[in-house]
């Protein structure tokens, strides 16, 4: 089913691109950029170990492509250890707002070659250009150090991609890129923004969404634990009591 959809889209794109000349006289009729994801839902099930989603699309021929995939934002506390009486303990902390739970950027060429720094900053393209801001005021040097640590820690667990993802062109119109999601990927509605870039400016952009949800047993347990914590706690105890009692009976004569 999934493969069928996948093939159908590729086929559609290929036909669309080969038919481009006939549409070339009326460029306003059609977008110079189309893109989609191979899946619009990542279901976190019992066997989930992370996944890879294919993002693909076509351009009308001119320019490079940048892809940014991000999860909803939340607040994140960054803590710095300090040595107190020989022991490393969390000493200072700084809370950042507007931190995406997941951030992936890919481009067909290095970002600095594609867009001026101010545009990269306005569009928040590249982890260093994320507009994460501390919720309390702090000296600029501190903010810089903590923000860098925030990005570094997110990269270490695979929630931010440490290096610019690769976008491969097939011919000069079709492009594709792989987006990696680790098993610790946060849930929520993700957005993938695809930019068509030429001569240092954004020519076109398109958005597509991706749902990341716990599914089946995992979702039930998580919801149960958070919505009915008392009953969940009692059930956890009952299971343990029953298991202990059962083991006591089974191994009675061993």
């Amino acid at each position, binding site marked *: 089913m999934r493969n069928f959809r996948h093939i159908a889209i590729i086929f559609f794109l290929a036909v669309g691109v080969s038919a481009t000349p006939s549409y070339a006289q009326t460029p306003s009729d059609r977008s110079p950029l189309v893109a989609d994801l191979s899946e619009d839902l990542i279901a976190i099930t019992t066997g989930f170990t992370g996944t890879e989603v294919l993002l693909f699309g076509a351009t009308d021929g001119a320019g490079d492509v940048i892809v940014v995939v991000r999860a909803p934002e939340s607040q994140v506390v*960054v803590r710095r250890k300090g040595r107190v009486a020989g022991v490393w303990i969390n000493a200072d902390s700084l809370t950042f707002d507007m931190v995406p739970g997941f951030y992936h950027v890919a481009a067909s060429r290095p970002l600095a070659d594609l867009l001026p720094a101010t545009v990269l900053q306005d569009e928040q393209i590249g982890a260093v250009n994320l507009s994460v801001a501390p919720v309390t005021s702090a000296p600029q040097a501190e903010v810089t150090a903590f923000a860098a640590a*925030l990005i570094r820690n997110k990269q*270490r667990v695979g929630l931010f991609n440490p290096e610019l993802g690769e976008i491969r062109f097939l011919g000069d119109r079709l492009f594709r890129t792989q987006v990696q999601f680790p098993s610790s990927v946060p849930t929520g509605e993700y957005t993938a923004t695809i930019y068509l870039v030429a001569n240092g400016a954004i020519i076109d952009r398109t958005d597509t969404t991706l749902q990341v949800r716990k599914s089946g047993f995992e979702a039930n347990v998580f919801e149960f634990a958070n919505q009915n914590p008392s009953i969940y706690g009692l059930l956890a105890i009952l299971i343990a*009591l029953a298991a*202990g009692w059962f083991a006591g009976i089974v191994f009675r004569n*061993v």
Partner: protein
Amino acid sequence: MNIYLPIAEMSVDVFLILGLGGAIGFLSGLFGVGGGFLMTPLLIFIGIPPAVAVASEANQIVAASVSGALAHMRRGNVDFKMGLILTVGGFVGSGVGVLIFTLLRQLGQVELLIALSYVVFLGAIGSLMLFESGRTILRRQAGTTTRGKLHQHTWLHGLPFKMRFRRSRLYISALVPIGIGFVVGILAAIMGVGGGFIMVPAMIYLLGMPTAMVVGTSLFQIIFVTANVTFLQATTNQTVDIVLAFLLLASAVIGAQFGTKVGGLLRGEQLRGLLALMVLAVCAKIAYDLVSTPVDLFSISEISGFGG
């Protein structure tokens, strides 16, 4: 084969968890301890968030202590009255422990609290046990035995609210077991342990209970205290991972049966000496991690997530 833990929100190798459960279960059967003091640090070490490790381990210990207590009950080695009095203190203590845990989790100091508790208590108990078992082994080799007083009177015996505990042949103030239960309850909640390794020496040396009654009674009250911790962690922090707890308890129960058999082949003081060395090794590892320079001085946690 991997399994996604719904509360820890991460994927783990099922066989790694089952192996850990089985190995710790074996050791707990061998030494007659709950094994929480080994399991919780190991879970944290393999990447389970500390808050989830502590809460889920409490859940697992409920099962381990039920099957242990049943075995002791059959032999009549449980002083129910003493167990219930200890439980009264344990309930209040574990409640206070979960409160402290929640507060320090918000302040970002819960890992430090867990680590320091481990270093202090494992260090103290491990050294005492090593000293005691070493002395016994030496004395056995020397071939002399000295007999201590049957029981000694201290200021603890002057406290009010005296109660009679027939099974343990004691007439002491109820405040002493309530106090012991309270302190051990706090530690159980913070460290993700049953607290047997503190409870047992406290019962022998502070209460003067007969050794035969001590382990069964300790296990009996641990059921209630860890059940209380499980409930409180589930309701205040939502950190009890039922899937993780179930994998651990299933494998630990089987491991414990083998451990018990092997344990029957070794002498008591040899077992205690080995256990002491293991306790000190865990203590040394945690102490080392506290003082060695971390790879990255910075760490992050989500505001409402399970980062711990």
